[in-house]
């Protein structure tokens, strides 16, 4: 029974931390900030330079696509490390499965290339 009590306490602590951490800066800001409202405060970027024109239209977002393609190879590595460690135990089946896995990933990579995800213009 005691061990379950630990579990409950852990759950409560996790809940408190989860609620506290994202909001801690909001809470401290309430007390620490110097409250002087002026027009510049409401600009999208508070960098000191007056804005030239309002932000409209689309902007270059290729970084997201590149990050997504990077994720593909990241995952590949994550899965291949444990596979490489237990390579001898897995035998022929392990090799076949790894090839299947990489083939499916390659299809995704081919798709990304064909759709121009890596074209930088």
């Amino acid at each position, binding site marked *: *029974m005691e061990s*379950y009590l630990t*579990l*409950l306490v852990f*759950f409560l602590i996790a809940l408190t931390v989860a609620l506290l951490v994202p909001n801690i800066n909001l809470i401290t800001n309430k007390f620490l900030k110097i409250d002087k409202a002026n027009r510049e405060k409401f600009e999208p970027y508070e960098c000191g330079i007056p804005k030239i024109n309002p932000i409209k239209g689309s902007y270059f977002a290729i970084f997201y696509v590149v990050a997504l393609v990077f994720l593909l190879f990241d995952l590949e590595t994550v899965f291949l490390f444990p596979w490489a460690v237990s390579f001898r135990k897995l035998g022929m*089946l392990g090799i076949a499965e790894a090839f299947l896995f990489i083939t*499916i990933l390659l*299809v*995704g990579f*081919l*798709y990304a290339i*064909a759709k121009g995800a890596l074209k930088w213009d």
Partner: protein
Amino acid sequence: MELNVGLLSPEILLTGIAVFMILLDLITPKRFKNKLFSVISSVAVGVAIILTLSKISPIPQKAFNGFITKEAFTGIIDILVLFSGLFTVLVSHDFIERKKISYIGEFYYTLLFVLVGAMLLAGSSELSTLFVSLEVASISTYILMSLFKGDYRGKEGALKYFITGSVGAALLVYGMAVLYGLTGTTLYGEIAQAAEKLSPLPLLLAAGLIAAGFLFKTGAVPFHGWMPDAYEGAPTPVTLLMGSAVKVAAFAAFIKLFIPIFYHFQAEWEKALGVIAVISMFSGALLALNQRNVKRMLAYSAISHTGIIIATFLSSPALTVFSVVFYLFAYTFMTVAAFGLITILSANGIKGEEIESWKGLYSKNPLLSLSAVAIFMSLAGIPPLVGFWGKFYILLALVKSGEVLLAVSVLIASLISLYFYLKPVVYIFMKEGTGEKFIPGAGEYVATIVSTAAIVIFGLLPEVIAQISIMGLSSFLRSLT
């Protein structure tokens, strides 16, 4: 080590075809895409149906060291998922012809991935397999919802579904983690053996979190916030798939996980689940009363139906499995027919979703109007249609296990829901309307009429579904021992 890969041949076939379609999509010229991919995916789903039918056996079979267990119960759910997938392909062909979409190939192979995820979800008998297949089905659904060009309602719905669905998945994983921490294994059978010796308090924590995850996916009331927006926003064929395939598979997985592990202390949680069931069926029915948009109305009615299905969990395990399989069988065909009908009627843009544009449909298309009567009356549970028998067996199960109060609330909720199910019928037959003419596509017409015919025929011959459900039940019970 026993792999038994052959058991998963329908899933492997669908995955293979889908991966092949990714490559084919890159070299096909745009004007052939819709026709080619709809033919390929419907043939693939058809072959998968035949493969699944040939593999159904009352003896439970295991694959991948017990990670997947396929009984007749799973087989029935797989067939339902695949049938709704087939109807979705038929409906989407005509839908895509009319709408602007630059991702035709993507639509069809993501649809196949939803089916694979849903089938694995129904088959999984291990926690991590369950989670991965649930995510395959859900993430593919989010993608499908947001693929259409300029459809900001769909993108909004997808984002809402994505955020709430992630919260649900997080709850589910927390529950799984607790369960794993308690028992030290992820296989259902071993968890069930270990769980019998544990005290109910920590198990209740796991049960609560896992149930919350599944209730998110099936849309019971405290977790129903995403349902109306997602159902209304999604393109109608995708709503059809969400309402039938994903929901049916989620219920199957819920049963497969819940009955072996948590049923031995039913007395501890049945009150909570009963309250959720009653609140869901009433709030679904009451909120639907005032909707002008038929898709939104059907979303609220889906919440009400979820409540009715969850009410069954309070009876004994055998009665639960039997009546839930029966109800899901009926519910799949009703959902497919209802959303197929809406797809046909929205041929001229968004209008067919508004109930005003259903005025005077009878003078334009008598067959569709009559099938609309069958569909909505079946959803309300009027005999001799199949929806009646589904509700009948649920009521029987509840009364047999002494839950009379719950049975009465199911009855009252159905009575309330009759009002909003009659509303489209009134608009079709009793209001004069002008509206433009519409020409339904062949695929969506076939899908709607065939599933309406299934509603009527199975309503006249309920013993067919009853026999199938009993087969599912017996093989499910055999897999527990």
